[in-house]
């Protein structure tokens, strides 16, 4: 059971990490990077390090991806669609 959880999270992590390299859309890259952190936190739980897993999930998957997304917005790489543009 545990082997499968570890295997799935490792595969998800690797796929997301490769997706970060090859995706063209910046917002999608941010989402993929946060998936890497999420899978890594599952891996930390499997390695019996719940403290690190919590930190990874809260900071790696949560706060840092929000910071990335906001930065993209500020530097103009992610534009919001307003109703006038449509």
């Amino acid at each position: 059971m545990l082997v499968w959880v570890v295997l799935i999270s490792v595969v998800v992590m690797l796929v997301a990490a490769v997706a970060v390299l090859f995706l063209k859309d910046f917002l999608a890259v941010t989402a993929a990077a946060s998936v890497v952190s999420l899978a890594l936190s599952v891996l930390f739980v499997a390695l019996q390090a719940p403290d690190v897993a919590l930190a990874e999930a809260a900071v790696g998957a949560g706060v840092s991806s929000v910071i990335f997304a906001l930065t993209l917005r500020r530097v103009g790489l992610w534009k919001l669609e307003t109703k006038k543009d449509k």
Partner: protein
Amino acid sequence: MNFREISGLIFIVGLGLLLFALLKILFVEQLVTGGIGANILATAPEEVGTANIVTSVLLAYRGLDTLGELTILFVAATAAGLVLGQRSSDAKHDPDAGFILHSAADVLFPFLILLGAYIILHGHLTPGGGFQGGAILAAAFFIPILASPASPLNHRVSSAIEGFAGAAFILIGLFGLFGKGDFLAPLFGTGEVGNLFSAGSLPLLYLAVGLKVGAELAGLLAHLHETEAND
């Protein structure tokens, strides 16, 4: 050699060293067991009184490192605030979020506060603690801003909380210095391992850490969100 080649070379050397160390551990030496880790596992519950051993290392045995970590976070948040700059008073806000994010923000806010407070206050009993709970508190205060960007965070309050929490951490450390002779020495005895009110001054320290991290991250996120978007 240009910059790209040099950085690639440095990366390859670092990766090689890392793999070498891993292979050496795997095939040549046995993993080091015993030593300081086993010592801490054996003595921490009665010496410090925490059920969560990680907390006893973070706040008691290596409390000074945690103070350094807080300082790094403070400097990073301050630098980001300096770089981000001011917004002009007539700058446009982002448009209001839709119905789903609005209702989700209203529903999630109390639960996120509760979860963050639980993780901070039980830092000495269960996994988690000031840093993790602080990040969750910051998220709790940031989601409403995301839902309605025109209602800003009160930066004066968040900096006041941050300052008081940081000062409280150092004050508790100084009480330890004058009472027990060591900076950040645990006070008030250990209590009974596993109770909410145990482990002496460690829960107070974690409360200070959690409030500081939460206020700092919330301030940083709100600052990022308030800076003008150029579109």
